[in-house]
């Protein structure tokens, strides 16, 4: 079973992100469970959503406290909320930022984890270009798919296509693909290093 936790703020589509991810898994014929950090989220408030993906029926209902992957849609949360809490040592992290971990002041922290699994993507810039708005939820899933391989990029894209109205879907898919490429590029570099 693979657990993902997504951090963001109300209005950034954090819950939708988990839903999309579960949808992508479902399209691959697998079991998936997505749910928000239940609450009365208001725009701007710190929000968390969860997604579990497994090959068999998922019975547990508890929040994902030891995620296999973390998505941080809003870097300003890094020093407000314990976003990395419970992350597995071999876990993945994808942060929406134009800076690297060191520049984000996370250099120290990254030591206990596998470097090549900790990446940042400028999802906001990408979304602004493709979508014209700062809602990086779908886009970052492209990156997550590429980073973790838990679902294919194509599944993510078809989930987006299913969930969003045509025009908006296309632009998000474009953004997701670019995020995936950026991730792929960094992976290539780190492998090369």
């Amino acid at each position: 079973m693979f657990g993902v936790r997504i951090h963001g703020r109300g209005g950034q589509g954090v819950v939708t992100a988990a839903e999309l991810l579960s949808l992508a898994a479902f399209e691959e014929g697998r079991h998936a469970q997505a749910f928000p950090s239940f609450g009365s989220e208001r725009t701007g408030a710190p929000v968390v959503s969860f997604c579990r993906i497994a090959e068999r029926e998922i019975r547990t209902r508890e929040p994902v406290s030891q995620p296999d992957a973390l998505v941080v849609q809003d870097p300003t949360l890094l020093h407000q909320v314990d976003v990395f809490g419970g992350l597995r040592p071999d876990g993945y992290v994808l942060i929406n930022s134009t800076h690297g971990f060191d520049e984000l002041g996370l250099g120290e922290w990254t030591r206990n984890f596998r470097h090549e699994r900790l990446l940042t993507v400028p999802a906001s810039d990408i979304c602004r270009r493709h979508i014209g708005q700062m809602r990086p939820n779908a886009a970052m899933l492209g990156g997550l798919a590429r980073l973790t391989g838990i679902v294919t990029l194509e599944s993510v894209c078809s989930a987006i296509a299913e969930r969003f109205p045509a025009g908006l879907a296309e632009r998000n898919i474009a953004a997701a693909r670019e995020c995936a490429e950026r991730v792929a590029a960094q992976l290539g570099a780190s492998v090369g290093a």
Partner: protein
Amino acid sequence: MLEQLEGSVAVAHAVALCRPEVIPAYPISPQTHIVEGLSAMVKTGELAPCEFINVESEYAAMSVAIGASATGARTYTATASQGLLYMVEALYNASGLGLPIVMTIANRAIGAPINIWNDHSDSMSQRDSGWIQLYVESNQEAIDTHILAFRLAEELSLPVMVCMDGFILTHAYERVDVPSQEQVDRFLSPYEPRQVLDPSEPVTIGAMVGPEAFTEVKYLAHVKQAQALDLIPELARELDGVLGREQGGLVRGYRLQDAETVIVALGSVLGTIEDAIDQQREQGVKVGALGIKAFRPFPLQEVRDALAGAARVVVIEKALAVGIGGIVSQDIHIALGSSATPVHTVIAGLGGRPITSASLTRLIEGALAGELAELTFLDLNAELVERELQRTREKRRSGPHAENMLRDIGVVAAGPV
């Protein structure tokens, strides 16, 4: 057809497949997505003929449902928490008049302090309202149980509450198999009322009954609800045939064979419990679970049989009867009757506190070690409450508990812990 749906949306589809004719509704979290879904289907004409009525309160919602049902319309509504309490008077009236209304309860805590998260305080408070209460474990079970509920309600002419955990199920996206209209129609034929407001055959419904007959009326209500104990398994089997999956009737056992420790629970927490049990079993611990689906009427015999071999019973309750502790465990005691099997009450998951497999594992280990008290509050922050109690001992005006403790742990009321 298999779909990846939010629980609320799945339930909305299931209810629509049952062809309700009148749906009065009032918004309250976490039930809103269900009625939003139904409202949309009525507006688009996907669900027709059906009257969706935006009422001004839950009290009105149940009252409109009473009028509609008494006039022979298949009637549905949904609510939760304070909303359920606000319609209490009408709940008793609906059951007293024998109106087969089906209502989803998106289980949620009751304030004060106000809390929108999940537990069973709301529906548990209405266990004596004369409504049949069915608790579901998953969104798939929620779908199937709603279909069963309409049939059950109309055969007995009694109202039915389908209780599903708020947020945990209502807001969870997962894979569900939504039946076809043809399947549902095969199981659920159009509503044939036992009595109806009809000018061609006028009757007076809702007479004032005095001491000379009130006891008899209540006795008959008891007998009538008890009939569900036979009918539910019957209908469940019939529905199995239609949907091709196993429903489970009044209760559902999990790895009860040779289980010495049996955990009793209602609703979605059973999934987490089952995972925990699997882990224990791998280590050879003889533990099993008993899920109670039909809480009203309470299946005394089935529970007694299921617990016959148990050395100890641990009842995990998502509600607290202040001043005594357990609610479900009281009924378990009655079921066990004279048997000496110890029953431990564990109050857990209040106001949305996650029930984790880690906590459950600790709980089971404690039980095996004989360290489990008769009444336990799972994951209670003992130090926190002790500090608060200390405060109240010291100062008369120590201020409100909730604010004090939140200050202690420095957490805002939203977001993850």
